[in-house]
């Protein structure tokens, strides 16, 4: 058998190779020819299926469970758990909402990976002539077949939807959140042309879904109420997610521009991003401060902002020093930005845990 094979994307063979149903060989798509046109063809590299080594398995699990994004699903629950008076929380509903959210998050992420693979968007911007890309995903690497991921995505989506249905029976108002999120996702997933991630308004879609809709939905599911405080938290949370997503995508800024993919807020322009990122980050920190002060946690907010500001300053210096959109520095700066977000979330958690204790200590003093 030839090591490479070129077939039409939408032929029976092409779809079979893309789904990866062969038990002996993996067909790794390395190049799209005529993408988006009727005669679109895909060139596959054919490699024998072999067991993954331990490093690959570790990397597979990391990519499969989307740790970097999963934290944004976990935190709103942890936050409510910490700030709620003991006994005020129905633990059954809490765990059900928690599991439903994780299932729906993983299911939609895997569906997205599957669709990207089938439509060829995971090959949109290879950096080498042989289709290699430093950020290749697990399907493109052949570590998992697309059909397995597809089946797994439906399994967790159905599990998440069933749990969600049960929650809707308890809190009927949740139907509004479910319908709006589902509508947004359907429009994003199934709109023709580019993948949803490359649509300009996706930036705002992200803020809405991860922010007020998700955070507000969690509060409503747990308590049957929706407070302005939670909506403000949701807005900050959505903005933080967009910031994190954009900072992590920053090393792809040159590829995105070459393929005329132009989100509205970030990743348009290398030099402008070096200004926009700090501005957006300062906006997030300002909203966080307002939120904390309104909730009577001024002292902890001041401490947190002080610490975060120190690392922010160092990060901005690295950002300004960065000279190239394709060199090694942009990856480092992107990683530093991601760590800054994680540190901020961790500090926020500490603030929530210790603010009550500090308040008591201050009263005693």
């Amino acid at each position, binding site marked *: 058998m*030839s*090591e*490479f*094979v*070129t077939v039409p994307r939408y032929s029976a063979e092409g779809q079979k190779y893309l789904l990866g149903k062969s038990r002996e060989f993996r067909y790794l798509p*390395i*190049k799209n*020819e*005529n993408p988006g*046109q009727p*005669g679109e*063809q895909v*060139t596959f*590299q054919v490699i024998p299926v072999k067991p993954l080594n331990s490093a690959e398995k570790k990397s597979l699990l990391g990519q499969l469970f989307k740790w970097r994004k999963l934290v944004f699903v976990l935190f709103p629950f942890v936050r409510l758990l910490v700030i709620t008076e003991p006994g005020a929380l129905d633990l059954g509903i809490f765990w059900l909402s928690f599991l439903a959210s994780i299932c729906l998050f993983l299911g939609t992420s895997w569906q997205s990976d599957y669709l990207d693979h089938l439509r060829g968007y995971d090959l949109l911007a290879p*950096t*080498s*002539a*042989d289709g*290699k*890309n*430093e950020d290749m995903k697990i399907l493109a690497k052949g570590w998992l077949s697309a059909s397995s991921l597809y089946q797994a995505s439906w399994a967790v989506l159905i599990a998440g939807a069933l749990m969600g249905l049960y929650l809707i029976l308890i809190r009927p108002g949740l139907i509004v959140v479910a319908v709006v999120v589902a509508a947004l996702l359907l429009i994003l997933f199934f709109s023709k042309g580019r993948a949803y991630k490359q649509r300009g308004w996706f930036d705002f879609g992200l803020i809405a879904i991860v922010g007020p809709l998700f955070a507000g939905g969690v509060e409503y599911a747990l308590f049957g109420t929706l407070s302005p405080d939670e909506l403000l938290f949701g807005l900050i949370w959505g903005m933080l997610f967009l910031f994190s997503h954009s900072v992590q995508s920053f090393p792809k800024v*040159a*590829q995105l521009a070459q393929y005329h993919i132009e989100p509205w807020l970030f990743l348009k322009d290398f030099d402008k991003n070096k200004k926009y990122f700090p501005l957006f980050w300062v906006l997030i920190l300002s909203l966080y401060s307002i939120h904390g002060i309104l909730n009577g946690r001024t002292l902890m907010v001041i401490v947190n902002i002080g610490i975060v500001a120190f690392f922010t300053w160092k990060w901005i210096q690295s950002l300004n020093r960065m*000279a*190239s*959109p*394709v*060199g*090694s*520095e942009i990856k480092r700066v992107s990683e530093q930005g991601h760590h800054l977000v994680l540190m901020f979330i961790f500090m926020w958690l500490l603030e929530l845990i210790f603010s009550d204790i500090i308040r008591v200590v201050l009263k005693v003093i």
Partner: protein
Amino acid sequence: MGDSVKIYSSQDFPVYLPKLNLLYDDLFSGGKGFRSYLTGLVGKNIALESKGIELLQQTIEFIHNASLLHDDLVDRSQLRRGKPAAWHKYTPEYAVLAGDYLLARVMVNLSAYGNIDLVHYTAQMISDLLEGEWLQDSVVGDYFINLEQLDRIHILKTSSLFKWCLRAPFIAQKQNDKQLHHLLEEMGKILGQLFQRSDDLLDFNIRNHEGKAVLGDLKSGYLNSFGAYLTQGMSRAEIQAFVQSPDLPAIQRAMGGEEKFQEKLNGFDQINSAMIQLYHHYLSEVSKLISQPELIRELAKLTDVLYWRKKPS
């Protein structure tokens, strides 16, 4: 390249401009003329009229030489093909203007030919080339860059010309089959990358039959593709030590000895062999679309010439 052609007519350039023709005489003497050879190879095999072939060969040589004029100034390289670089021998201003003038002549000659697709594609190629140059300049001094990041630059800077050599004759002949052009585009991309990687190996004295000066890239603050491959998996401190190596034995010591260096070289050759296999796969797909078996045979030989630096048979 026995068949190589170095097209240059003094009529193209005004004789009254001081130093202009002297500068071009220096520039166009020397060089292997591989790009014009490749363009001629494709053009002749698809029976493109000789006027068209001549124009295309002239075009690619003008663009390539314009890029050398600008490149030498950007890199502050003192020598070009063993002689003083134009900016150094004349003035930086003349080097910039002479490069611009060549690009302008390209547009004058091509537009007179009357094929708008060819003009459009050539302008696109020049803009890709310049993007590559710009990006390359932005990574000077970045010793932690990886192979794939460099590939992105080389595809713009080096491969754009090779892609043009394969596609332009078909465009000149108004053969615009999209599938064919996509395949040629991929083949050109691979040829450019192989050429660049082979050239980068010369800098480490690998298959350096031409006796090119070694470690020139590192000394100019530029980690080339083989350097990036060698430093894969090294810590930042190890990379710092590696790039400060004064000579090749020191490089080999930094790699853990000659044997380890050889192992790395074998690994590099292996990934490039896989790319060569992909090139031949694309070529077999092209052979289904065109009926020029001689062209296919000639194109099949190019990887040996470009990567393994074998003499053409």
